[in-house]
């Protein structure tokens, strides 16, 4: 038969990589400011938060699930971190609290979805509201300021002169999940559960635990993202993060993930998140109004999936 049918699953990642490179090329031609090294560092910095969320979202989507609550988790963990990061409190306390909140929220989502069998869409829509509510209650509805200098350094500091720690965290997380998804038995189980949960169960895989764990991962990473965002903006606001879940979903879909599960590569999450931030960075620099940016984002997303669908149809 046809040789190219074999590598079908990586088609969309490939297409998006090309689109990403074309975008970078065009933007570099249009604006010399875009092509500078420090702007690329900038882009990675701006990708980091959505990128970290996309990694967690990617894991959930690989199992065929969905998590609409990550934006709210960013808000809650960010507010709590900001409240705890005042004055001379050791920064480890807000850091662990934010991550802990993410973990607990993820555990809640995972238990409801996996063990009580409530559809993920419903569960996470519910926890989205619930967690957002907690963020408002805890903060009294207002932004929290007065974050300590030390805490600000978590995301704000640069190493090797120019490289922001924020970017380092992001790349470390991507690398860790590339490793987990590619190399570990657990990672493979995520794919198997997403590909066919019933077949995975018959094969002796503990499907419920795998499903629970991916929501935990999404929660933990959202907690980390919230903590980092608080450090980056030196404040924690209860509205922060609303809509972030959709950006994360957009990133993984652009990156070639199938919403029905089982399909998607680690580099897809990276490419998808980068496509989105290159787009807004480049268009900002060119002075294109944000309204048009929404337009272009929408076209790219639907276009990416279309190319993929058509490609698959043609090869079969």
């Amino acid at each position, binding site marked *: *038969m046809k*040789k190219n049918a074999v590598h079908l699953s990586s088609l969309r990642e490939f297409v998006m990589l090309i689109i990403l490179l074309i975008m970078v090329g065009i933007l570099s031609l249009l604006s010399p400011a875009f092509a500078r090294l420090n702007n690329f560092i900038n882009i990675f910095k701006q990708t980091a938060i959505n990128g970290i969320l996309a990694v967690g979202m990617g894991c959930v989507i690989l199992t065929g699930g969905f998590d609409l609550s990550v934006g709210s988790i960013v808000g809650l963990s960010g507010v709590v971190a900001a409240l705890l990061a005042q004055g001379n409190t050791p920064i480890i306390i807000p850091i662990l609290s934010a991550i802990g909140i993410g973990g607990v929220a993820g555990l809640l989502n995972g238990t409801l979805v996996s063990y009580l069998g409530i559809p993920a869409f419903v569960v996470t829509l519910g926890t989205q509201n619930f967690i957002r509510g907690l963020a408002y209650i805890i903060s009294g509805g207002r932004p929290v300021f007065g974050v300590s200098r030390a805490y600000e350094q978590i995301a704000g500091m640069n190493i090797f002169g120019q490289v922001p720690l924020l970017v380092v965290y992001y790349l470390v997380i991507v690398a860790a999940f590339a490793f987990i998804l590619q190399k570990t*038995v657990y990672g493979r189980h995520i794919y198997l559960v997403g590909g066919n949960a*019933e*077949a995975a*169960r018959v094969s002796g895989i503990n499907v419920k635990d795998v499903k629970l764990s991916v929501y935990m991962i999404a929660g933990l990473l959202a907690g980390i993202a919230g903590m980092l965002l608080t450090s980056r903006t030196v404040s924690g606001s209860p509205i922060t993060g609303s809509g972030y879940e959709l950006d994360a979903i957009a990133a993984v879909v652009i990156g070639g993930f199938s919403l029905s599960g089982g399909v998607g590569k680690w580099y897809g999450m990276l490419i998808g998140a980068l496509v989105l931030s290159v787009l807004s960075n480049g268009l900002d620099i060119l002075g294109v109004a944000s309204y048009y940016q929404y337009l272009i984002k929408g076209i790219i997303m639907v276009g990416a999936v279309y190319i993929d669908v058509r490609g698959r149809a043609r090869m079969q």
Partner: protein
Amino acid sequence: MADYLLELQGITKSFSGNRVLDDVTLRVLPGKVHALIGENGAGKSTLMKILMGIYSANAGNIVLDGQQVHIGGPRQALDLGVQMIHQELSPVLDMTIAENVFAGVEETKKCLGIFRIVDRKRMDKEAADALAQVGLHFAPAKRMRELSIAQMQMVEIAKAISRKAKLIVMDEPTSALTEKETDILFDKIRALRDKGVSIIYISHKLEEISEISDMVSILRDGRMIETRPTKGVRREYLISRMVGRELTNFYPKREVPIGEVLFEARGIGWKNRVKDVSFSLRRGEILGVAGLVGAGRSETMSALFGVLRRDAGDVYLNGRKADIKKPSQAVARGMAYITEDRKATGLNLIASIKHNITSVYLRLFTRRRLINEKNEQNAADKYIQMLKIRTESREKRVQLLSGGNQQKVAIAKWLAGDPDIVIMDEPTRGIDVGSKYDIYALMGELAARGKAIIMVSSEMPELMGMADRIMVLADSRVSGFVERKDFNQEKILGLQFV
């Protein structure tokens, strides 16, 4: 030339340079059952898809009733009186029978003089008429979900009748039916034939072909090998024409010494579907499990393996009670379960052959707890070769394989762990003769190595050909055991009816 109802003349079809049909001509007489046989991948379904207008041929003509026609899609085929009943039925389960019968061609009436609305009453009435013609007396308002697969099939036939079909294509219509249901289906087919309707009947079951068909056409590798009257043709002949070689012994049963008791089930129960099932299984033994559809065969297997949580009974391994409440425990204790429905519960269709093969015993392919690419590749290549899985690459998605090759992958994934007890539920359903033979050979090989096999099957010849002993289930209970020396079709059949 109008003697023929349908003529497919010189049909040629290629997919990206790969010729799957080569100058195929098929002529179907009116009022005849015309069997179409061939191994999977021989081009049967492609030919039928061209007839239904799903694919268009690169060359060749379709002549219907002496008129050359162009068929642009299933809807157009339907208008010309050509209807296909697919192997995998896809009714809308939560709609009524009438709604399914009229799906896409809903009867309408005027409402308020402007709107056309669905005429439910007329649809129900006509659906009931059509159902009566196939001997079903269901309320047309009944939901599809409440029907058995056989009944759904009857509804499909009713659908064809209601649309005044001249030619009905049936693709493996009996793959999910019991013998009794098959007999009923055959009665309907004969009745249709007597009314002048032609049937193109695709099946792997050669006994059925000789029973029901008037003519038989054999396809091999995209070419039409032969068309002849069915009467008097021997099955060995058909097999040899299909595979292009003589099969010396179709059931490669090996005589192996039967060892000690390895596995025992005592009083297994699950809801109302499995009641007090007890049996034992020895090393080297192939235990056949027979029964009508709905007798609780698959449910029993699922309850043994922990896929269904049994509410009565115990499982013993090597004489010791084994705690098997979920599949992971069964796997850990050396059991394997090749399920009835490879697509729903056996395979990860969107993953590669390699990833499917290593999916059960993934830990065996790790080094320092990390998945080792080389080990995985070696294992995949080994089983592709051992089971003769036809593919150009181990990375190919399982979805793209033929049914027989998919089934081999579904089996291969269990072999890597060298399990002692292998449950195979309908291991050869809907697959081609060559693949069947390969799977039988593998079963013999496993038995010879001292493994114990449970083989659930609806095909009597297969059970009688391969099993050492047959356990018959009827109405959720064990109705009897038959030893190989006492195998007798009437006896086994008799036990299936309560």
